[in-house]
């Protein structure tokens, strides 16, 4: 008996002996790839498109970095609302530091796109898949070099121990330019909501236009050769299938995928099921007592609103499917607000819901709920709920035309003979704004503001036009160090190849 027992015990010891190789469950390891594996370039590319949504569509990432830091947006603290540890205040007053939560998250999330799009290249992508991934990567890298000047990248995303290298400034921009030039021949012409040839060209225009800025943000110099590249690319795009959408707001409407004739590159949002946070564009600005009940947060400042002439549809208009549903107009909301039946709305204290042009970073008056002019760029989707149907717009024809006008003003030469004032007036005419007799750089930056407000380009534009450090409402003259954001403290700690930007 004793022997039997010992043998049994010995058997259980042996049976229990394990090599301890971890058996995975609902997650996959890289070895699951291979020729027929589940992990392949196609699915990783979809993951990369998905990874674009948070940094570009959320109100706290690229949009905040480009807009809250400018004269287009202010995020006032309203008693119990929007203190949020001061993140919005320091964005507007340009007092950020390396621990700013949203700037750090933006840097990280743009890096995630760089990672995912580089990862595709390890899984034998088709040339088209590789090109799409590289275009998404070029976009993310462009946002990174524009904001932080330093773009970390991995040679081999499969090596977890690799310390990422860093491309800085012009080196990073040159890489982006070479990547875009390489993939334009491979990319397809459409659809608009996937990476496409003209989208890559428009992005390349941005790269050439800002080349002198990236090299020296405080005193940029613009090379004629770069400006001519911008013009050449613009002419190719303008010759394409685009025209200015007659109704300006249709470019951003819930059905913009079919209504816009102007959008060149967008991110697909599927109403009701799969979207980025594009709805934050209206939720962040609408008052609680409007429909939908918003977050009563961000507004623009009076000086920006005053840049528009009275009849400019971009300043305000009715929009079918919205104004008749809720009384909310598109463009800028100022003064008394009404519901769809024309009944004047009230704020939560019972006072009239009348938005005032004046707004402060910390609101302490009894009217603190209603201060600031509200902005509706994307017409509201009343069907999709949390998942709005509005495709998110990266690049569109009006931007291309204004960039071309700017390139000519900065010394470029248009073989097609268009003038800056012609290009600008085409855009103004669509908006029912009076034509200009001539266009200077100062007028052009204002026109870019009027046309492209809340589209995540303002900070970059103000820097390029040398106006970013100037004072405006609730923002003093600032130190040139703020022309680049600080490298986030946690990113700096994790990578010895990063160095803190000057002044931080």
């Amino acid at each position: 008996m004793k022997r039997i027992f010992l043998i049994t015990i010995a058997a259980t010891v042996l049976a229990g002996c394990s090599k301890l190789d971890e058996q995975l469950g609902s997650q996959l390891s890289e070895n699951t790839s291979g020729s027929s594996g589940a992990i392949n370039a196609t699915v990783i590319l979809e993951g990369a498109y998905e990874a674009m949504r948070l940094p570009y569509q959320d109100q706290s990432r690229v949009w905040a970095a480009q807009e809250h830091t400018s004269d287009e947006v202010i995020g006032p603290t309203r008693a119990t609302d929007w203190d949020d540890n001061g993140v919005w205040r320091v964005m507007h007053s340009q007092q950020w530091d390396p621990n700013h939560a949203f700037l750090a998250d933006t840097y990280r999330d743009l890096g995630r796109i760089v990672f995912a799009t580089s990862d595709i290249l390890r899984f034998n992508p088709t040339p088209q898949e590789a090109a799409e991934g590289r275009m998404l990567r070029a976009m993310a890298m462009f946002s990174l070099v524009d904001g932080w000047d330093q773009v970390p990248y991995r040679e081999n995303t499969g090596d977890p121990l690799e310390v990422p290298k860093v491309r800085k400034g012009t080196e990073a921009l040159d890489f982006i330019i070479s990547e875009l030039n390489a993939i334009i021949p491979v990319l397809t012409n459409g659809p608009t909501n996937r990476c496409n040839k003209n989208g890559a060209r428009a992005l390349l225009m941005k790269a050439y236009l800002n080349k002198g800025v990236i090299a020296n943000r405080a005193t940029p110099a613009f090379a004629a050769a770069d400006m001519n590249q911008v013009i050449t690319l613009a002419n190719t795009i303008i010759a394409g299938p685009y025209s200015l959408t007659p109704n300006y707001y249709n470019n951003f409407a819930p059905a913009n995928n079919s209504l816009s004739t102007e959008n060149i590159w967008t991110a697909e949002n599927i109403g009701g099921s799969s979207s980025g946070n594009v709805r934050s564009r209206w939720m962040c600005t609408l008052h609680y007592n409007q429909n939908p009940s918003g977050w009563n947060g961000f507004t623009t400042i009076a000086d920006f609103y005053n840049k528009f002439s009275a009849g400019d549809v971009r300043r305000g208009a009715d929009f079918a499917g919205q104004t008749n549903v809720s009384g909310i107009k598109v463009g800028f909301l100022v003064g008394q607000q009404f519901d769809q039946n024309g009944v004047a709305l009230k704020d939560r204290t019972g006072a009239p819901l009348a938005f005032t042009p004046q707004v402060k970073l910390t609101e302490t008056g009894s009217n603190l709920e209603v201060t600031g002019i509200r902005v509706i760029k994307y017409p509201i989707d009343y069907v999709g709920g949390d998942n709005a149907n509005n495709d998110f717009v990266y690049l569109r024809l009006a931007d291309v035309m204004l960039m071309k006008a700017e390139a000519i003003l900065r010394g470029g030469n248009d073989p097609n003979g268009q003038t800056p004032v012609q290009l600008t007036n085409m855009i103004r005419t669509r908006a029912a704004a009076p034509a200009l007799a001539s266009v200077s750089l100062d007028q052009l930056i204002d026109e870019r503001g009027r046309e492209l407000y809340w589209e995540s380009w303002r900070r970059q534009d103000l820097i390029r036009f040398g106006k970013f450090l100037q004072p405006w409402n609730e923002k003093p003259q600032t130190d040139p160090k703020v022309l680049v954001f600080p490298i986030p403290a946690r990113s700096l700690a994790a990578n010895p190849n990063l160095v803190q930007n000057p002044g931080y």
Partner: protein
Amino acid sequence: MLMKKSLTPKVWGSLLAIFLLFSTAYAQKTVTGKVTDPNGAAVAGASITVKGGTIGTSTDASGSFSLTLSNDAKTLVITAVGFTKQEMAVEGSDLTNIVLIPAPNDLDEVVVIGYGVARKRDITGAVASVKEKDFNKGVNPAPDQLIQGKVAGVQVVNNSGAPGAGTTFRIRGASSLRAGNGPLFVVDGVQLSNNNTRPDAGLSPELGNSTPGGNPLNFINPADIESMEVLKDASAAAIYGSRGANGVVLITTKKGKTGDARVDVNASVGVANILKRLEVLSGDQYRTALGEFGFPTNVSTAATPTANFGGNVDALDEVLRSGIVQNYGVGFSSGNDNAKYRLSFGYMNQDGIIRKTNFTKYTAGFNSSFKLLNNRRLGLDFSVLTSQIDEDIAPISNNAGFRGSMIGQALQWNPTRPLRKANGDLDIEYGADAVNPLAFSEAYFDNAKVTTVLANVAPSYKITNNLIVRSQIGITYATGTRKNYTTAFINVPDIAFNPNTGRGGEAGISQNELNTQQITNTLSYNADLNKRISLNAVVGHEYIKTTFGGNNSYARNFIPTDRPYTYFMATSDPSSRRLGSFQDPTNELQSFFTRAIVNVDNKYIFTGTLRADGSSKFGENNRYGYFPSLAGAWNIDKENFMEDLRMFTSLKARASWGITGNQDFPAGASQTLYTVFGNNPGLIQQSNTANPNLKWESTTTLNFGLDFAMMANRLTGTFDYFERKTKDILFPRDAADPVAPISATRWENIDGTIANSGLEVTLNYRIIDKQDLSWDFGINATFLKNELTDFAGEIPTGEVTGQGLSGAFAQLIKSGYPINTFYLRQFTGIDKATGISQYQGGDEKFFLGSPNPTMLLGFTTNVGYKKWSLEIAGNGSFGQYIYNNTANAVLAFNNLGKRNIGLSEYETAKSLGERPVNPTSASTRYLESGDFFRLANATVSYRLGDIGKSIRNATVYVTAQNLFILTNFTGFDPEVNVSKPLNGIPSFGMEYTPYPTSRTINFGINFSL
């Protein structure tokens, strides 16, 4: 009522008298005798009583006594300090030579240690053993609550007041930033997994989607527990290797005992009410306050939140109630020398103090032990514990935004507005922010069921009298199901009925499944090697495999019916549906271990332990970890020079050193992983970055202890000083950008030291020890220090939630400070001119206050008078701070004009000149001292003894739990830990609209058949 009160003691008194009457007869006789110790020396002052009676006397200086007793007195009971109680038959015994046996020294008790038992005398480590009689009385759904406040060095925090709520259990402080800080629980040799089988509810994020967890130990019936041992230092815990760093709690269940069949019955009924209310403005005060601060008070339209509806409503009161608690248990046991068994059933039904909350637990357990073969060398132990927990849960989340979860909704409800309209309908205003808490309670249904089976079979064979081989095969299977739905009539966006679609509501069904298999093989040797040296040794092998997985479905926009939406998941809007499932990587742990306890002359004891742990979770370059421990003890009282020092009955010094590990990090953390997305077919993203070097956290512990017993064991005590240093801190570090899309982190063992040191003092004193009167007093105190050093980086946690507080956090983990130290703007007062808060240095933040206590205190006192006994237990915690997120977000004065506010906040604001436009900000204004002392438990019991022929040992009792709490903390209860993590880093010491704590009065009876 008055009559009843004054009568109650009399009723018991009469009962007593009746019993005395029955047991006392009139015929009398006189007996004489003498009491000595085994050496023949007279024992003076021994008391002699008649069993079951009141007559008694005591011995004189020569040990002699004389006692007159009735003719039917059958048995004498002889007791003396320092000796075992002895019973002698009046007839047929030699009363002239009663020899008392010295009381077994407490140190001869056998204590369960990992993979074996040892005499307390032979223990070299810091081990605290709590037996059933010392457990906390009253309603304690989970075993960890039984020893709350009882053991030095152990902090048990009830995370919330909900019945069956989880606890935060820490032994000797926190030693981990991200890996778990809880100990390893071992039930009859089976190690429990840290996975919580109760799934989270499927909830829309609108009201907070992180819900408090249940207690994973709920499945054990506390009435089945015989003892709990807490292994605190490395000498004790190193045998558990890579799972021992946070200490180990061994739970030993009751087994069958030799003797006649026996049935033990316990039954109790109680009632629970809220311990402390938070005062908000009444309707009248609210109207006054609105007027004082310039808000219109004459508005009566529903559209305005400040509207005056004319009422006076206490919304919190409307969702509270008295909760009835019932607890019944029965245990059958029987056995002889070769076969023993025990069978038990338990039923507990606890209504929470918030409406529609309930905790019901069914348990059944069976264990048996056999000695087989002619030589009785083959042993077979078998046990099964089964249970089902059935909970109804309130809509209380950890991270509600401005709409609040139910407690927040009740506190901020406009107190002028009745919750029901004149016609009795609930007042629900669609489109408004304010959610009627009573309506929400009516609309919300949430039920969780967790079913657990823990089965064990352990054959053993006695190869020789000293050498035993044993194999234990244990299986744990647990499955949890949670079904929750919110009906369409509630005015919460995305849930409220949408007249355009004719749909509304939300529902979720989730399920988790946990499976653990364990095989433990041990060979133990226990013998006296010669006259001087004895050896207690074990070698073993163990294999544990854990699998954990689950699935969940969530949907919105149902076609409303009055039936549970979870019955009709298919009527939901297809585009709202979310399907999820997960299966964690299988976790395998394979170990080899050995331990030897050598006792020389009963004076010098040495313990050596070594465990080699291999885990599939560790990176491929670090598959095995080795965990050694060495310890020694010196029974000083056995030394000759102590002969003259009679004050000590025992005196032992201990010292130990050892290394233990913590491997409480997610399975799969060492590999590169890709995750498949359910809602986006074909979408796969990298979710984890590999670290082939990943390993356990390593804690080195030094412990010095002193155990003593004095005054014939009337005073016993233990001192322990410890130092724990944890290195190789496990942390999901920000990987260098660019990083994979889902997880930006990579699990690493990072540099830094978490140091915990402290002193533990335990004293027990029998103040009075007489036949009819005894009084024991026990106290334990722990002094703790916690510090993180040599750590690069700063890690924020302690998310502060609520309106205007996005992105705010309260704690920053940084080198040079205790873990989770608060890091906040420093509030300096209100600017009288503007009515706005001022802060030291504006937006600058400071390290101020730690949530970790510097002193823990527990006391127990027992007074026994004849058949009465009174037991009082209390515990306290000092030096810690709590962040009152409720005051910051819900009760704050600047909410005036939008919703109700706290009364003290209102009064403070008036005295400081604060104005309602004062911006919300997380700051030290809401950081409060968490010092408290709680009278946790008071029990009065009366021993009825045997009733009639069949009922034996009946005892009736009344227990009050949470009688009162002394604290300056302004929230419901300073003993709270609402989970407020940031980026997955756990917080500690945060309070946010939790389920309130209750006070419970419980009446019960125990008896045997």
